[in-house]
């Protein structure tokens, strides 16, 4: 059987979700190809060619693909689907946007957000905000699967696959107008080793920036936020961690002024070590935290900054 992995990328960089999806793909088959969808994305394809275990890299380019237009992405994949038994897509916002289209066109049931490959047709996926794990067996001949990157280790480097161009695709009824991307030199939230997240307690965007961001920068961490903080405009939407935002599993997750609603926990409870700073000793976040500090963040975060400096960080 052959497997096609669709690369997660922004036209310039290959994102680490791709390497993790390759790991899931290699559990299904030794014949794993990677398809890069984008525009001016040769560097992405070259990076994908270096992933260990990849047989071949395909590069499809067009304006619509460069903007991540789902109709074009699905069509580009469908043009190649005949040669594969399974199509694996990283379960990012971008991947979730087009993978179900491919499944619908192939008349197969998509299998969303898998966290484990049990066998070639059986997979485990979280449901109900991660409060249950469902093991499903698919009877479809061809499988369309989205893969939760945090559940798989990243495939390493060392490959030297050939890169081949394939035809791009366009979208007739959808036009890109504009985008507003968050610019940041911090590590990518989904792949960071340390994440510092702020909640509603921050009270304003200025406070969020004054408290959460310096702590993150001191630790070389990515910044996350609760839905309440994003809804209130303290942080951009891209920072939302949770059931309906990003799922993260860093080595260290620090939640500041976040209560620990089930929807938030769904996005971070697989972190290796969880730290909670909250002034309410009964906040549910403490039920999952390895280290809890019951304190007002207004004093606790500056204290933490000094303690880190004292420890040579």
């Amino acid at each position, binding site marked *: 059987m052959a497997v096609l992995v669709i690369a997660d990328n922004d036209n310039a960089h290959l994102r680490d979700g791709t390497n993790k999806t390759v790991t899931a793909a290699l559990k299904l088959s030794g014949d794993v190809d990677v398809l890069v969808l984008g525009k001016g994305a040769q560097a992405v394809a070259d990076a994908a060619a270096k992933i260990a275990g990849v047989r071949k890299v395909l590069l499809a380019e067009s304006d619509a693909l460069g903007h991540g237009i789902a109709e074009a992405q699905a069509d580009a994949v469908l043009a190649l689907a005949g040669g594969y038994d399974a199509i694996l897509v990283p379960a990012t916002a971008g991947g979730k946007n087009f993978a179900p289209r491919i499944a619908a066109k192939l008349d197969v049931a998509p299998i969303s957000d898998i966290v484990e490959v049990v066998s070639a047709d059986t997979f485990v996926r979280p449901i109900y905000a991660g409060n249950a794990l469902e093991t499903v067996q698919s009877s479809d001949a061809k499988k369309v699967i989205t893969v939760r990157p945090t559940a798989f280790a990243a495939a390493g480097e060392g490959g030297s696959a050939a890169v081949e161009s394939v035809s791009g695709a366009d979208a007739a009824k959808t036009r890109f107008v504009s*985008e507003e991307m968050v610019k940041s030199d911090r590590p990518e939230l989904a792949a960071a080793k340390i994440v510092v997240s702020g909640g509603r307690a921050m009270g304003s965007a200025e406070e969020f920036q004054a408290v959460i961001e310096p702590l993150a920068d001191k630790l070389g961490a990515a910044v996350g936020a609760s839905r309440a903080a994003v809804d209130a405009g303290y942080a951009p939407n891209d920072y939302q961690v949770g059931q309906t935002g990003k799922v993260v599993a860093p080595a260290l997750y620090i939640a500041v002024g976040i209560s620990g609603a089930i929807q938030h926990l769904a996005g971070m409870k697989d972190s290796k070590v969880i730290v909670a700073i909250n002034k309410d000793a009964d906040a549910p976040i403490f039920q999952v935290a*390895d280290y809890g500090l019951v304190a007002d963040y207004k004093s606790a975060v500056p204290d933490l900054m000094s303690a880190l400096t004292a420890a040579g960080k």
Partner: protein
Amino acid sequence: MKVLVPVKRVIDYNVKARVKADQTGVDLANVKMSMNPFCEIAVEEAVRLKEKGVATEVVIVSIGPAQAQETIRTALAMGGDRGILITSDADLEPLAVAKLLKAVVAEEQPGLVLMGKQAIDGDNNAVGQMLSALLDWPQATFASAVEIAGSTAKVTREVDGGLQTLDVDLPAVITADLRLNEPRYASLPNIMKAKKKEIAQKTVADYGVDVAPRLTVVKVTEPAKRSAGIKVESAADLVSKLTTAGVL
């Protein structure tokens, strides 16, 4: 323009789902059920389009058990005009739901389908994209702003890295994200009025589409529990614990 809004009855978002001891699924007996929060946002947006004079009629459709009638009533109390209930004894997969919705679209001929991006039980985040593919209509998912201008919709979407704005030709499928709007509470008079609104009663068989499952649930289990750790006394104590744990 007619707007079709598919809504799903799910476990209330405040209730923590519990796995059944026999591992066949999640225990939904005597559990509070509500409209999926993302569907509520879609209903609100459709009603606002009607209030702005953009939409002429808001049709609510739900596929589910007989009790999904209550979910439709809630949407009608928020301002939907009429409902369609398609009863199904079996749990349907996203592909089957999308095929049924395609058949409803063929009958109703809406200019726009507005729906939730994700149901909080199945968490598939799939039906909208699949419906759009089956219809060959454009899609704009994870919407945080929708503006209809003539025969196009300008949709701002929550994407990896920030926001993206697309123009899609109508008819189209748009799926709602959390920040599209804040759904209203239905007023008592509107709840009373909704009781008189029409809900067409259908069954899956009426549509003649293949809803056979493609997936078998082998088992449903509880994830590994995380136990509460310890409380530290000070920031300095925390730093020394984290250093020992090797995560700094």
